[in-house]
């Protein structure tokens, strides 16, 4: 059911890519490599190769928050000022369903079809990858600062251990935090009941009331973790390793962890779709993908990147955070697809507990 304008109303602009060699995109913080001394980042290289001037804004901290920022424009068929967003699967699905996302021109993204890893093909919300292209995948688990506290193995420890009191953060992303809690409840995040949901929520509520939780965060947890303002938290896999702080440890809770993917999508009023497609195609080149993965330490969605990694940093070739084995993937879970009513019910309940 298309919400608001969408494609039905013919809300697609003409592509100005031929005239304007620019690309405006929003992505999550700390999600791309940066120039440093002699090191030339993938993005700089892309701009050199294509002549496209990229304005890259790392302003996505939380899917819902970002959605709130753009929903009015998208709904009214107004430009958001962005040609591309990188949003998590469920949010990408919601936007595609609303008719706010442009179809990619397959001819322009040959690398996508050629190199997308099999586990990310044929997702229910975009079976042919007509609308989206994965940027990175990752896991949500526990991180802690080992200079401050001992190992934190389970979510229950995280929420109750007294040495962590007031030094724990959880993510504002409902699916990450609640997924882990459902797991610790013994429930399956991809298929759970309202009761299980309620129990999991109660756990947070209690921990919060006890003063165990210091904050609900987006990506900013990483600084506080390094600095010692927090001792342990729910974290995203790549961030911890990429922080290059030997005290910071990421580990899957004993109950298992969550997996997700972030996807590049082009909104209907994005006026530089062809440039966006060039970007997608470029990042689906295995060499580029390997270079990016070596920097951000997230799961690389590009087939052939593992081989290219050999040339860049052999020590990373077997890193399960980047190239997870089937075994490793066995302990990961996805979050149940929710219809609109359930989604907004859960989101409201979650918001009330964390806000």
């Amino acid at each position, binding site marked *: 059911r298309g919400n608001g304008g969408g494609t039905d109303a013919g809300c697609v602009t003409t592509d100005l890519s031929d005239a304007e060699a620019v690309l405006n995109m929003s992505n999550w913080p700390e999600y791309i490599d940066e120039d440093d001394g002699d090191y030339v980042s993938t993005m700089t290289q892309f701009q050199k190769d294509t002549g496209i001037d990229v304005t890259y804004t790392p302003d996505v901290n939380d899917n819902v928050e970002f959605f709130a920022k753009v929903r009015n424009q998208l*709904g009214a068929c107004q430009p958001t*000022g962005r040609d591309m967003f990188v949003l998590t699967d469920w949010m990408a699905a919601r936007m595609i369903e609303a008719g706010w996302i442009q179809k990619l021109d397959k001819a322009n993204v040959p690398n996508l079809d050629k190199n997308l890893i099999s586990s990310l093909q044929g997702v229910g919300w975009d079976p042919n990858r007509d609308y989206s292209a994965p940027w990175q995948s990752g896991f949500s688990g526990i991180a802690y600062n080992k200079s401050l506290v001992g190992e934190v193995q389970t979510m229950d420890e995280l929420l109750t251990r007294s040495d962590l009191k007031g030094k724990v953060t959880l993510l504002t992303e409902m699916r990450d935090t609640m997924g882990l809690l459902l797991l610790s409840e013994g429930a399956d995040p991809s298929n759970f009941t309202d009761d299980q949901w309620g129990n999991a929520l109660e756990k947070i509520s209690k921990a919060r009331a006890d003063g165990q939780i210091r904050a609900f965060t987006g990506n900013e947890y990483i600084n506080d973790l390094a600095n010692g303002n927090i001792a342990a938290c729910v974290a995203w896999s790549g961030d911890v390793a990429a922080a290059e702080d030997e005290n910071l440890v990421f580990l899957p809770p004993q109950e298992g962890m969550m997996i997700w993917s972030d996807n590049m999508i082009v909104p209907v009023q994005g006026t530089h779709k062809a440039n966006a497609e060039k970007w997608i195609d470029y990042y689906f080149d295995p060499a580029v993908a390997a270079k990016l993965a070596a920097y951000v330490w997230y799961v690389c969605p590009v087939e052939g990147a593992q081989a290219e990694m050999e040339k860049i940093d052999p020590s990373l070739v077997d890193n399960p955070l980047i190239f997870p084995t089937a075994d490793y993937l066995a302990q990961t879970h996805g979050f149940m697809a929710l219809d609109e009513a359930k989604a907004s019910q859960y989101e409201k309940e979650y918001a009330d507990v964390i806000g």
Partner: protein
Amino acid sequence: MTRLGSWIGKHLMLTLGILVLLYMYIPNFIVALMSFNDSSESRNLYQFQSFTWDNWLNPCEPQGMCESLRVSISIGLLSTLVATIIGTLAAFALVRHRFEGRSTMNLVLFLPMATPEIVMGSSLLALFVAAGFGGQLGFWTVLIAHIMFCISFVVVTVRSRLAGLDSNLEKAASDLYANEWQTFWRITFPLVFPGILAAALLSFSLSFDDFIITNLNSGTTVTFPMFVWGAAQRGVPMQVNVIGTLMFLLALGIVIGGELLSRRRAHGKASAL
């Protein structure tokens, strides 16, 4: 008692006052210090690592920061201009004229100052959305909002200056053959000007600094405070401290420079003859 001790005893209030002032400057001091922090080595942004000029030499390095600064300054200047003009006119009406609805107007002018920003910002957002402008949120809606909340402050500032103006001066001017227009431009305006200037400065700082109302009505437009807010999520780039310090020094420079200039001018003219 030591000499310092007795000085402090005699100047207790002044000493305490200076302490309060120092308290107000603790963050500014840290901001200035951090603007010289070399953060390239480690991503830990909470500690002073080592000294560098780099941040000052490349203030615009962080993606989007200077763009957001440009947006903030444009909005600041535009809203200052419009609010100052509209507000000054209103102040004149309120001080110089007795008209029906004057007290209502006084109330309407007071209200925005008595309304929490979150309420003002959200009501404006509700209006924009209800009026079908939800999609147009951005530069113009922010500008409109800023003008709105600056007007009251301008009126209050200019009004008090105007009320203190000796009305005999205008009468004297008209006695000396100045018509209404000349009286305004040669006497009233120059005398009220310091008040207008103060109002403009206040407007600019309020607009430049605003986050709450802006955040609600900006859509995807990013102002400097919004950039900082967003950047706080990933660790504020040290260049933000450069901009913070720079703006502060600029303001201080303008005010103190203006003061010195006017003093020197008064002095210079007196000794010129």
